[in-house]
């Protein structure tokens, strides 16, 4: 049946991340917090970062969302923890390429997040996968200034 195609999107690793997400919760000490919404579907994500000496020392996320957005957030935290800001931003760019079905330079660095490459075949769901990464980008761009913001749906696609 056609649902077998769903396996391309919802691989076991993804379902596992969405059901037992890593680093879901809040940090006692954070330098940056951001909340991002996807206004069309009601998904909301909060990302907290503790940045010390230009390195992501710790990260937490919380919020409500679908399997793809929760799994992606969980995988994102795995990928960026301990990384310098520049490297984390690069990973975000690579991830954006991956979910659009494009080749990337260093796939290994993304870790489990590479499992979301199947999203490229489901264009309506790319925004779900990139929500947490877009939150991360916003937070990192502001280098610990703690910006709350709302990003529009259209902006989440690129």
């Amino acid at each position: 049946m056609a649902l077998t195609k769903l396996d391309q999107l919802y691989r076991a690793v993804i379902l596992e991340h969405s059901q037992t997400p890593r680093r879901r919760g809040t940090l006692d000490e954070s330098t940056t917090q951001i909340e991002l919404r996807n206004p069309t579907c009601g998904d909301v994500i909060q990302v907290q970062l503790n940045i010390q000496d230009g390195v992501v020392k710790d990260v937490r996320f919380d919020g409500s969302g679908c399997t793809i957005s929760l799994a992606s957030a969980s995988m994102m935290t795995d990928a960026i923890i301990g990384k310098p800001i520049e490297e984390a931003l690069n990973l975000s760019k690579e991830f954006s390429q991956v979910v659009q079905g494009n080749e990337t330079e260093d796939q290994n660095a993304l870790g489990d997040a590479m499992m979301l490459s199947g999203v490229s075949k489901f264009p309506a769901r790319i925004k779900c996968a990139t929500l947490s990464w877009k939150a991360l980008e916003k937070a990192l761009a502001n280098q610990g200034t703690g910006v709350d913001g709302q990003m529009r749906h259209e902006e989440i696609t690129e």
Partner: protein
Amino acid sequence: MTDSFDRLKQDFPILNQVINDEPLVYLDNAATTQKPQTVLDAVETYYHTSNANVHRGVHTLAERATSQYEGSREVIRNFINAAETAEVLLTRGTTTSLNWVARSFGEVVVEAGDEILISYMEHHSNIVPWQQLAKKKQAKLVYVELTEDGQLDLDDFQNKLTDKTKIVSLTHVSNVLGVVNPIQQIADWVHEKNGYLVVDGAQAVPHMPVDVQALQADFYAFSGHKMLGPTGIGVLYGKRALLEQMEPVEFGGEMIDFVEEQDSTWKELPWKFEAGTPNIAGAIGLAVAVQYLERIGMENIAQHERELIEYVMPKLKQIKGLTIFGPEDLRFRTGVISFNIDGVHPHDVATAMDMEGVAVRAGHHCAQPLMTYLNQPATARASFYIYNTKADADKFVEAILATKEFFLNGLN
């Protein structure tokens, strides 16, 4: 009856296709409906044979375009039983219609300290224009509560309807819950308090007989594309006496009488509101859509949707972990079913059902206050229409079961 409805699918070319290796079952009709061949033909024929600008030209094509455009207005007038075509304004859709009322009529009647009464089941297009008006006029936007099963709380309505209430704006049918509101009864209450009743009919006109005079609505708005017509065309019905008090919202060509250097006068109703070249092809397409619906009969359409809901609801109720929103009593609802599968996000539900060829909507359905009220971030929504069949309903149920199986047991 069911047999003849089963044959309607043939009139809609788009429905005859395979999506993700499965025959398409289109259940997103509350968002937009598909168009029958007759509507597609009418739009094409207009451009092939009669395209010209309306109202101004003297040549033959201009006369043809004008008479078809104005003829469409008459078809629509008759369909909703407005007293005269002057009361039938052609707009871009329900959103534009409601914005015109809020901006122009709101300007006339709402003052500081007044109240505008809406409800928690409104679409954003029947919330945000009133928010803006309330802010501008320092008026208060008041929300009517819903009952536990998602109907308008009429006791709360009567409590909140006061001498301060200038405008009441309610949906005829909820786009999320499918609930039908008792507009006629409400109109009586509103008029007793000397208020005005605006009705969002986007989810009603396509699905049931609507007689604006019998309803006593002061304004009534709806969209063409949700009733087999093209996108970009809609209607604002208004009582002549009220429309006459209103200033146009837009100014320019087509709506003026005389233009002098410093001042201008407006055309008569309905044209004083229709600035610029209108959506002529859209109006013609909508009129043909109306004629298509009239041939079937709006009572029959309402009955058909009721039969589908009565058929599918007991099957849905047997599915463990499936929550259905809205009233239990099917007499109070149309063919809209909002639902959630416990433990599966509506977005995941919609993707999985799409893999089965079943098109449903997931999200907040442009009704965020209602989602907050229901304490749900989002829901999945299936909405039936004339061309849907019991076989579609069966496929819908199967797709829900398959989706549930995939997400909840697929991991073992």
